[in-house]
């Protein structure tokens, strides 16, 4: 097959056509028209449907190298495509199928690159009415659980296998059953949560899920291709470029398999900052008892501090299962393993709580990692009680002496701003515009000690701000 991009027919009138062609090539040579034949890329249906096409389109835009993407129905089609030389490369398969095609000599193993990791996860309906927050909750009696049966393994999977209502290799069927309310939870890969982003996704740590906790989505070059170098360049782009990383994160996928998380203790140099900030929150918002959520709690220093200095019931929420294990360990070290402290591994874009659950929601330094600020703010408002407050932002807060912040902040001593030395995948835009976009009426942007949003959810009634159509 060839895909000539220039004029290919006898043209009428010829000179005009030639002129148009020349102009066309001159104008669009950089971004579109290229004499190259397309590289053929195969992929698997376990990826979110647009992911590989988006990666490919970004590469075409950047380099002008045409690409075709074919989503194979299953592993056999992928293998036969590789054998027949239909594909020059494969993007976003999984480790197991990757290993199988390597064994059969269909790919060149040393070019293997990882674009993201699938994590074992519990998928739940929006709002998570059954309040399933961790693996142990799956042991509750009477739960109707579905298990996805391709490459899921490890001790938890074995346990669930014994009690699951449905075990299937058809993820669409499982997710349909979940959405129809015929299943309460599905144990599967988080990538299927990314395919249906309204579902709640609780990712599981390696400790509980065993080696089955993480599955790499590798890129492989076909051993039959004559265009190894070109294919390698595209895979390099998918696995290493900042554009590709942001596309992958934008689809709600994880770049980490959790293996590099090692416990060095909490970053003690930040502890004073979190303490001052917790004090500020306690002074300004935390009168009496109540239910508090810390979004993107990381190693949990602020979460623990808030539980220590207030009477609040505090939940720390983070998307990384391994980081939450560090938080739990830190809480134990602080002798704060009491019933007022909880840890949940979930995504801020689909919070695992019913509407109107929290009196106070706090978050420090997490927002520039959220792929869709608007959706996250909407979720925050949804789970906030009428009359509740959200305090979200970055920096050290009002009470922290500037010299302490200056000592510990990223880029201190370099004269550079935090954003210059630290890669934030989704930098904050204009917060006033974000609030307008979210339809929030009652908010303040505070700029003392960083940049902070203070959102008040108005008591129920007419013109309830931000709650949308309640």
């Amino acid at each position, binding site marked *: 097959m060839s895909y000539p991009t220039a004029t290919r027919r006898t043209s009428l009138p010829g000179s005009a056509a030639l002129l148009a062609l020349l102009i066309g090539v001159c104008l669009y040579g950089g971004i579109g028209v290229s004499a190259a034949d397309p590289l053929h890329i195969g992929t698997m249906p376990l990826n979110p449907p647009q992911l590989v096409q988006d990666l490919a389109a970004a590469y*075409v835009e950047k380099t002008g190298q045409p690409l075709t993407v074919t989503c194979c129905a299953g592993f056999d089609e992928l293998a036969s495509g590789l054998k027949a030389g239909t594909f020059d490369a494969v993007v976003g398969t999984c480790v197991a199928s990757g290993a199988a095609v390597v064994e059969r000599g269909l790919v060149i193993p040393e070019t293997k690159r990882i674009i993201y990791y699938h994590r074992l996860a519990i998928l739940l309906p929006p709002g998570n009415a059954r309040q399933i927050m961790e693996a142990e909750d799956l042991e509750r009696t009477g739960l109707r659980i579905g298990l996805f049966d391709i490459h899921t393994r490890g001790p938890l999977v074995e346990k669930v296998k014994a009690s699951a209502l449905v075990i299937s290799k058809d993820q669409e069927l499982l997710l349909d059953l979940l959405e129809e309310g015929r299943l309460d939870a599905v144990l599967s890969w988080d990538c299927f949560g990314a395919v249906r982003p309204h579902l709640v996704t609780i990712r599981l740590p390696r400790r509980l899920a065993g080696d089955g906790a993480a599955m790499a989505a590798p890129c492989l070059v076909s051993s039959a291709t004559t265009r190894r170098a070109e294919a390698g360049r595209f895979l390099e782009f998918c696995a290493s470029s900042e554009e590709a990383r942001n596309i992958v994160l934008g689809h709600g996928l994880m770049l980490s398999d959790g293996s590099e998380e090692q416990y060095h203790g909490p970053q003690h140099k930040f502890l004073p900052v979190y303490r001052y900030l917790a004090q500020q929150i306690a002074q300004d918002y935390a009168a009496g008892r109540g239910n508090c959520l810390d979004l993107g709690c990381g190693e949990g220093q602020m979460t623990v501090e808030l539980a220590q200095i207030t009477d609040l019931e505090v939940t720390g929420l983070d998307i990384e299962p391994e980081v939450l294990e560090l938080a739990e360990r830190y809480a134990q070290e602080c002798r704060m393993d009491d019933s007022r402290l909880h840890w949940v591994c979930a995504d801020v874009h689909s919070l695992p709580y019913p509407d109107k659950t929290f009196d106070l929601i706090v978050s420090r330094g997490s927002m520039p990692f959220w792929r869709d600020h608007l959706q996250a703010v909407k979720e925050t408002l949804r789970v906030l009680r009428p009359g509740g407050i959200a305090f979200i932002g970055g920096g050290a807060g009002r009470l922290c002496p500037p010299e302490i912040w200056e000592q510990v902040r990223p880029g201190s001593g370099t004269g550079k701003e935090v954003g210059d030395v630290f890669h934030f995948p989704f930098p904050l835009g204009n917060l006033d515009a974000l609030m307008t976009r979210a339809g929030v009426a009652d908010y303040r942007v505070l700029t003392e000690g960083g940049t902070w949003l203070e959102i008040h959810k108005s008591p129920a009634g007419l013109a309830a701000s931000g709650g949308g159509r309640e």
Partner: protein
Amino acid sequence: MKPRITLTVCVSLALAALSLPAFAATLDLGVPDQFESAICDAAAAFVEQSGHQLRVHYVPVPAGAFEMAREGRMDVIIPPCNNSSKEFSDKGWVRPETGKRIFCRRMAIILPPKNPKGISLLSDLYRPDVRVASLTVLRDRIQKFAPSLCRDVHESGDIMAMWLRDGEQMMDLLASGAIDAALAWDTFAADDPRNFVVIRLPRSAAGDQAVAPITAFVTPGSDESEVSQQLVKFLSESIAAQDIFLKHGYVLDDGSDAAWYDKNAASRFEPVYRNIVQQVIDDYGITRGRALDIGCGTGQMAVALAQMTSLEVTGVDIEPEAIATSERHAAEAALSDRCHFVCADAHSLPFPDNHFDLVVSRGTLPFLRDQALAVREVYRALKPGGVAFLGGGMGRYTPEEEARKLYPKGVSPETALGWGPSQTREDSIFPFPVRSFEVLMTRAGIHDYTVINEGGRWVEIRK
């Protein structure tokens, strides 16, 4: 109202600081909850551009709007439709001179994806196999152009299956298959991710009830009336706001431009359409079967295609008045039996899979908000072995000199789809310029295509 000049906004972000005005005002904007995301998006663009702050208040329709207005809490309010507009102007609210309509709501038939019952006209709603629903608030309006749809439920043979109070419930019933069609404003489907088919009704079918322009009012005696006027001007006139409304699937036009276009521009392009049709015939040899013209405008290319081939031709356009004009042109050419026109959106075509032998489209792509979705829809509706020829320009058979004269100001063969090397959105007459077919086809997942940079910018897709 006391002045509310905030200092916090001035230092909130370095980014905003670049465009800050001398002072930053805080406005209260009342928005009917059914338009929430589109108007909030446009208002947010105003915040980004102007540095002023906006507090958006949802107004449940129809109850809350007047309450809030009476309390004097809003600086700017967007009433849900004309009826309430009158009430506002009676109370002394000002509709700024600059504030033309923000967008237009059109009365429409809303259908499930792919239009399983093959509905394209108001008269199809009377079919016995079609269960129709609408909203109680629209009953008086529908009564005026379709009185027999509104007969009392107890009368024998009533046509309307149900009258509902809740728009969201109506859309859910449609999605679940409990009803086959909804007769309501097109805005109910605009932001819905379920990709409903929307058949907008022209004035010729629904009369004055077909259109409801949405406007904005400024409160009498607002302290921020200058900024309020600026906001209304932005929402109703700026390119940025118009792009946002189009992106949400709203229609800006009330149809009054269609007659002008028909009279002043249409005839000049007659030979161009014939040339393009000839080119398509010569290149693809498809002269029998079914053809589709996407964004058919006044219907000239569709009529030319029917004249020059034996094809059964369907034209779709999002503007209901363009459909009325196309039908007239087909009737004048005595081709009404082989030329059909449906008012539909290219993003959710009202046709089954594998339906057309040929799909053509000239000059429509840069008006489409999600070109990858639209191209996937074309591919879906195309028969295996069929060809789609999409793009913009005057075609290979139109002599270069003549072609150059026909392009609108600022457009040339090289920028026929709105994108040139030095162009920005502001220089382009199109809301969504097409930058690269290669990127678009990769994003849409289409492999078998050929880019043709001759006589404009075109892409040929084979299924």
